[in-house]
């Protein structure tokens, strides 16, 4: 599962940082203890030096024993291997009835030939308390540090990656069909993102160029085809008027004429597709869809006469699209014409225009192949040589241009095409 960059980053920090901090804390404790021992040893030695000095210079004026401070003993009761090194011990205080930990150190001196042993005391209780307090403070600071690092990291990565997210948003909005150029910031303040934007901009430029060349090629090719098509058509018009045509030549001429007509129609549709691709239909007006459907139905009633299937319709009258009139006329007439032509005997067509959808249903034979390819260029539902295979791709292209949602479904001999749109109220 993919996580966001920020989550991933925080995740790593939360795994590794506490570990690092724990090791750091242990190290800190060990070092702190070592320093404390060293300090106590120095203090004990200082006390030894002071008291032994007093003992040697004024042996009579000094107290032999001060509780918790020092002991002076005549003779050598402590074996020599325990001298000089600090030792741990504890002393019972009768006032508040508790044992207190002490650090002691014993050294041996000789005053006028008599050996003495001097033991100095330093309480280790306070220093232990200090260690604990320092340690707690340190742990608290470490936790604070952990939180701060995570928060700062999140904040800074949000700021650092902002150009990246901006670029990504722009790329998401980019649509090659709309022939727009992509505007990316040249100076983001971060050289990697500057480079990224530069690379993307170059790529998009190249893609745009290639796409526009291709579109231009289709348009030019279609235009150039018109003249030879016109020549063939005019020659055929002359040919069918030559006297003494035999039935055989007439049949051949008929086939050639049909093929040429299909070619002309296909070329016209290709040209139209190319022109839509090239944004050559910029003019827009508010179009009343109910009126347009009514007008088209009048055409079809006139043309198809008794061949027309039963047409039912329920249309909402106040629906307007803001679009190019020619294109919308082509869109709707293609859909209705399709529903009429690809019908069954005694079939029907049902047209519904509602708040945000236009649904055209008709009876018809099942479609061979994938239904989602139906709107691709040169895909035909059934082997019908008379169609150009471009009608529905025109529909798709026009829907795409105006961001209409186009859906096709087929269930039990009923074809259903739905065009979803956002209702715009004409004022």
């Amino acid at each position: 599962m993919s996580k966001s960059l920020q989550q991933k980053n925080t995740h790593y920090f939360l795994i590794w940082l506490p570990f690092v901090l724990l090791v750091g804390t242990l190290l800190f404790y060990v070092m702190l203890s070592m320093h404390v021992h060293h300090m106590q040893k120095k203090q004990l030695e200082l006390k030894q030096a002071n008291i032994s000095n007093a003992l040697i210079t004024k042996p009579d004026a000094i107290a032999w024993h001060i509780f918790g401070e020092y002991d002076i003993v005549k003779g050598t009761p402590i074996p020599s291997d325990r001298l000089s090194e600090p030792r741990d011990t504890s002393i019972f205080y009768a006032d508040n009835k508790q044992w207190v930990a002490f650090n002691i150190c014993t050294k041996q001196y000789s005053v006028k030939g008599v050996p003495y042993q001097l033991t100095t005391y330093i309480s280790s209780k306070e220093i232990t308390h200090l260690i604990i307090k320092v340690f707690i403070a340190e742990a608290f600071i470490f936790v604070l540090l952990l939180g701060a690092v995570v928060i700062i990291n999140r904040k800074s990565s949000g700021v650092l990656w902002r150009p990246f997210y901006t670029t990504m948003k722009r790329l998401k909005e980019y649509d090659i069909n709309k022939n727009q150029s992509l505007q990316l910031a040249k100076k983001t303040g971060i050289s990697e993102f500057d480079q990224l934007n530069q690379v993307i901009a170059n790529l998009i430029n190249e893609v745009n160029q290639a796409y526009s060349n291709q579109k231009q090629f289709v348009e030019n090719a279609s235009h150039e085809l018109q003249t030879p098509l016109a020549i063939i058509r005019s020659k055929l018009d002359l040919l069918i008027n030559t006297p003494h045509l035999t039935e055989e030549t007439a049949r051949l001429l008929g086939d050639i004429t049909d093929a040429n007509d299909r070619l002309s129609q296909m070329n016209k549709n290709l040209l139209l597709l190319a022109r839509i691709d090239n944004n050559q239909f910029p003019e827009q007006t508010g179009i009343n869809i109910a009126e347009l459907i009514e007008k088209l139905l009048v055409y079809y009633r006139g043309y198809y006469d008794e061949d027309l299937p039963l047409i039912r319709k329920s249309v909402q009258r106040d629906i307007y699209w803001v679009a190019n009139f020619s294109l919308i006329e082509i869109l709707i007439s293609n859909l209705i014409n399709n529903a009429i032509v690809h019908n069954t005997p005694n079939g029907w067509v049902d047209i519904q225009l509602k708040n945000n959808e236009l649904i055209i249903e008709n009876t018809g034979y099942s479609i061979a192949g994938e239904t989602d390819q139906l709107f691709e260029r040169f895909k035909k539902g059934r082997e019908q040589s008379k169609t150009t295979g471009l009608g529905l791709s025109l529909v798709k292209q026009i829907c795409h241009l105006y961001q209409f949602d186009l859906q096709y479904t087929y269930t039990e001999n009923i074809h259903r095409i739905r065009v979803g749109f956002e209702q715009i109220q004409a004022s």
Partner: protein
Amino acid sequence: MKLLVIEDEPSLLESIIQYFHQEKFVCETAGSLHEGIRKIEDFQYDCIILDINLPGGSGLQLLKYLRQNKKGDGVIIISARDSLDDRIAGLDLGADDYLTKPFHLSELNARVKALIRRKYAEGSSTMELGILKADLPSRTIKAAGQQISLSKIEYDLLLFLMTNKNRVVSRRAIAEHIYDGPSEQVPSFDFIYSHIKNLKRKLKEKGCNEIIQTVYGLGYKLSL
């Protein structure tokens, strides 16, 4: 009637000339812009059929020149360019009609005749052909004095056949002529059959039997 055809594609030019010769037009031709301009300076034509893409420049330049010199020759543009802008540009400069390639010669013929009728035969807005008589402003056709009741499509159909009398007119040409829906999307011409059938029946009722013949699978011909 005098006709000037300015078209750089010799093969297409030849077809047009051949067709209009049969219609008893006197035809002149030009293959380039300058040749065209020379011809319109020397003569006046009833109708000029003008291609846009010509060697030496755009046909629109010729049109501009023509109108600037107050010449009233009728002009029909034939062009491979079929966008609305191209049409508007042509008509704005004073063209009388605009036909996109590829076109049917029968359609061009109908356009030329309609133009000539509009321009020169102001008084006579009727077209007579044997016992058939069409009254154009009221869109009615009489057979031997009796009015035939025709639907809009049947009227257009009969008039188109009358304009192209004694010629085989292909079904496609008829379909494109009478269809006035979205220009790019002419529905399949199967719908012609039933209209021809009805028209034949109505003509038969008025005593004009067999004047429309079906020519194999190619099209229809009205002969009187």
